[in-house]
Structure formats: structure tokens, C-alpha cells
């Protein structure tokens, strides 16, 4: 163990490692020997540090506690004695997971004067394909169709949210559409669009407040299929617990869409906290076998700390794409924004799919196979990255 040292990268709190299978006994022991009352993550449901004295990460067998010198001495003795407490160390400062810290982070350390790092990572800037003749539907919070950098583009819109037009009152949808189909030469700033000549189908299935329902999303998929969109990009999802069956409805729908030449790409989800060793499963509906699930990498080709992984036999990450510090379009008057999430990785894949569809004529399952075939393999676990980073033809 080490002593707490605020100036030495530690927090003053302590990590208590519990023996395998001894979470309950260890929690009782913390109270008995040191009077430490802890809450469990199973009960706290995502709370950061809710117990009076600490938090027990049930699935990790680790407790994070605040301890005074007497309590610390008791814990140290317990490590050396038989019992459920296996080890003790000072808690280190880790990367903040708060939104504010993420936003304050500087942009990626690559040259983005001409193209975003994301376009470079998928090789879009070196591809002769443009997406011309391919229809890409983005089902999201709508679109600022009057954005000046989309002037002259073929844009079809529909809203599946009662009482709201397709206008994007959130920003998420306009950002995703920008990555999948936005400009390569916007006339100032980095080019950010993968399939920059694709036809844009903007379906609003999430409200301006960012919420939606299965009914609206299925209606959006049906609209995309009826318009013969070759690619549907869905940067949306709902978190699931490990072992939750995938939706039979979405699976049949995605399978039928593939049979009709429409590939559905969806975000794997942002529920992991990899700094804490916590990996959450691919969410709904990306966990359906016939929906292509997309994880996120950063500019160093490391996995996004939030990116969901394959943790059971149900959901699987199929591919990854740039999803950290992604620069793209945003509703006027802001015009641009730089944000992170598997939501940002998903339209990179949709754009690359459109390029492959144009270059090869592949549709449906063949398009799925070519995305996998061409993906650049990574020295990372397949449960996290699937076949690797998608690559433009």
C-alpha cells in the first residue's frame, strides 16, 4: 500500500481489493474492523461516490473508501490477516470522465488543416469514391437543412416525432449527417464528410430533447427502406444489462432490410468506463446480429474509454471508427462542433459503406461483408473492435 498524497497523483481515498467471490463478506468486514459504511454499485446505479464512506464495485470486487489514519491502520492489518480483504492501495487520479473535462481537452494532435483526423483514419481523403448515387439515411434528431455547407445537396427529410419538424433543435443529427455525408472542402476549416456526394435522407426519430421510441425508429427504418436507401445510420441506442436478449423485432426488420439492399449501422453505446475496468454490453438495437454495431477509437487508435464491448453471447462489436474529438457540422449559427461518442463513430462507418456501395455495387449482406473484409485489423481484442477500423475503397 502507499500513503495518500494529494501532490503525488492520488486522491486521499483507498482501493480495497476483495478476495474472489467475497464482495458481501468484504463489505461487512470493512464495517466491522474500520466502521466503514459503503454502498454497492448494484444498488447505487451509476452514482459516482454515494456511500457515506465509500462505494463497492460488486463486479470488480473492489471498494473505494475514505479512511482516517486509524481506519487505515485497521485495513492494513486486515490485509495481512486471513479474511476477505486481499490488498489495499491509494487511489490514483485518473482521467476525468465528466463532460466538462472532455470538452476542455484540446483537439487531436494531428494536422486537421485539410481533413479531420477521422477522414484520414478511414482513408476517405485518399479514396476516389464520393458516394454519388448512393442514398444514406441518418435517423437522429433531424437536420439543419439550410446549413450553408450543404447548399445544393440532394436532401430528403421526414419527421417521425409528433409536433416537431425535421429541424434539428439538438445538434446531434446535424453532426452525424455531416460526418457521413458532409463536405470535403467546406470553404474554411477541415473537410469532415466521408461520402460527400451521397444523397442525404434525414429522418427525425429523436426529439429536440434527444428522446425517441421504438415506434418512431421503426417508422424511420421503413421510410429509409421504401426510399431504397442503401445505408441507414443510427447513432442511438438504449443500454442493456448483460445477458438481455436482443429484440426479435429489430432483428427481423434488419434482416429484411438487408434482403432488400439496406444495411443498418448502429452505435454500440457509451456505457463502458474502461478506466475503472468496467465494460458494458452493446446496447439495443446494435446488439441484434443483423445490425452492424460500431465502437469508437481515438486519434491514437486506442479504444474510446466509453465504448461498449462484447461481454456476452448476444451483442457483438462488428467494427470501429473514429469517435473521439470528432469535428463536424452543427446547426446554425454555431455551424461546427467537436464531440465524442460511438454516435460519432457510426456515421463514419455509414459514409464508408456508401463509398464501398458506389465503388463496388455491393448491397445488403455483400456490403456488410466488404466492410469487414476491408477493415484494417488492430492489435486490440476482437471483443472490443471486431474486424477493426473500416477503410474507404
Amino acid at each position, binding site marked *: 500500500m502507499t500513503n495518500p498524497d494529494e501532490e503525488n497523483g492520488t486522491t486521499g481515498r483507498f482501493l480495497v481489493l476483495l478476495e474472489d467471490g467475497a464482495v458481501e463478506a468484504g463489505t461487512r468486514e470493512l464495517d466491522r474492523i474500520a466502521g466503514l459504511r459503503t454502498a454497492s454499485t448494484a444498488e447505487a446505479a451509476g452514482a459516482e461516490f454515494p456511500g457515506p464512506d465509500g462505494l463497492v464495485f460488486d463486479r470488480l470486487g473492489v471498494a473505494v473508501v475514505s479512511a482516517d489514519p486509524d481506519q487505515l491502520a485497521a485495513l492494513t492489518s486486515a490485509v495481512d490477516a486471513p479474511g476477505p480483504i486481499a490488498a489495499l492501495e491509494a487511489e490514483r487520479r485518473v482521467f476525468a470522465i465528466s463532460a466538462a473535462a472532455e470538452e476542455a481537452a484540446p483537439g487531436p494532435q494531428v494536422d486537421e488543416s485539410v481533413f479531420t483526423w477521422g477522414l484520414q483514419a478511414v482513408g476517405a481523403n485518399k479514396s476516389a469514391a464520393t458516394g454519388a448515387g448512393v442514398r444514406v439515411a441518418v435517423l437522429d434528431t433531424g437536420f439543419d437543412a439550410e446549413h450553408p455547407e450543404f447548399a445544393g445537396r440532394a436532401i430528403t427529410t421526414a419527421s417521425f416525432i409528433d409536433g416537431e419538424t425535421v429541424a434539428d433543435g439538438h445538434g446531434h443529427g446535424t453532426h452525424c449527417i455531416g460526418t457521413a455525408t458532409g463536405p470535403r472542402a467546406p470553404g474554411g476549416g477541415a473537410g469532415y464528410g466521408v461520402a460527400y456526394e451521397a444523397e442525404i435522407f434525414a429522418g427525425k426519430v429523436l426529439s429536440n430533447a434527444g*428522446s425517441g421510441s421504438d415506434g418512431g425508429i421503426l417508422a424511420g427504418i*421503413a421510410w429509409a427502406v421504401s426510399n431504397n436507401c442503401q445505408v441507414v445510420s443510427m447513432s442511438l441506442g438504449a443500454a442493456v444489462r448483460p445477458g438481455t436478449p436482443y429484440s426479435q423485432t429489430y432483428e427481423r426488420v434488419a434482416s429484411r432490410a438487408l434482403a432488400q439492399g439496406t444495411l443498418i449501422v448502429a452505435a454500440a453505446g457509451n456505457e463502458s468506463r474502461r478506466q475503472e475496468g468496467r465494460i458494458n454490453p452493446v446496447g439495443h438495437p446494435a446488439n441484434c446480429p443483423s445490425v452492424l454495431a460500431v465502437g469508437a477509437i481515438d486519434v491514437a487508435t486506442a479504444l474510446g474509454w466509453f465504448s461498449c464491448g462484447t461481454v456476452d453471447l448476444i451483442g457483438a462489436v462488428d467494427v470501429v471508427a473514429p469517435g473521439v474529438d470528432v469535428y463536424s457540422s452543427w446547426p446554425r449559427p454555431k455551424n461546427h462542433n467537436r464531440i465524442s*461518442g460511438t454516435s460519432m463513430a457510426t456515421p463514419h462507418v455509414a459514409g464508408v459503406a456508401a463509398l464501398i456501395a458506389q465503388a463496388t455495387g455491393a448491397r445488403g449482406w455483400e456490403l456488410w461483408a466488404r466492410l469487414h473484409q476491408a477493415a484494417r485489423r488492430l492489435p486490440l481484442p476482437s471483443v472490443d473492435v471486431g474486424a477493426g477500423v473500416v477503410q474507404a475503397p
Partner: protein
Amino acid sequence: MLVVVDDGALGGLMAVVAALEAAGMRVDRVLPEIATITGAAEPGAFAALRGVSGVDSVERAGPGFSIPHPGKGVQ
């Protein structure tokens, strides 16, 4: 409530809709492109809906989807 229709029953989709309504479903949307019908029904109506000729599966709709407010957190 999400109802998937058998491939073989697509030609008679409106008959399936009528039978679902007779079995207690309030139909919101009929989506022939993906052979799916969405709407609402009391939980007690599940068995009757599953028994409708041409129905492949009946599933409860999820609690919904949400993304954070812009500028707040990972998207």
C-alpha cells in the same frame, strides 16, 4: 407493442391489422416495407395478438431512447 408479420402474410397485411385491432391492439403505424405493425395493447391481450393468423412475433416496445443534451457528456 411491436408486431412482426409472417413473410407469407404480407399480401394480406390489412387483414392482419384488422384482426389485431379486433384482438385489442390500438394500431399506430403499419410499416409494409419491414412487415411490422406498431401500436399499444393491454398486457392481457398478448396471447390473443400472438394467436392472430399471419403474426410472426409480438414484443413489448422498449422504454425508449435518449441522448444527452448537446454539450453534456459523450454522445
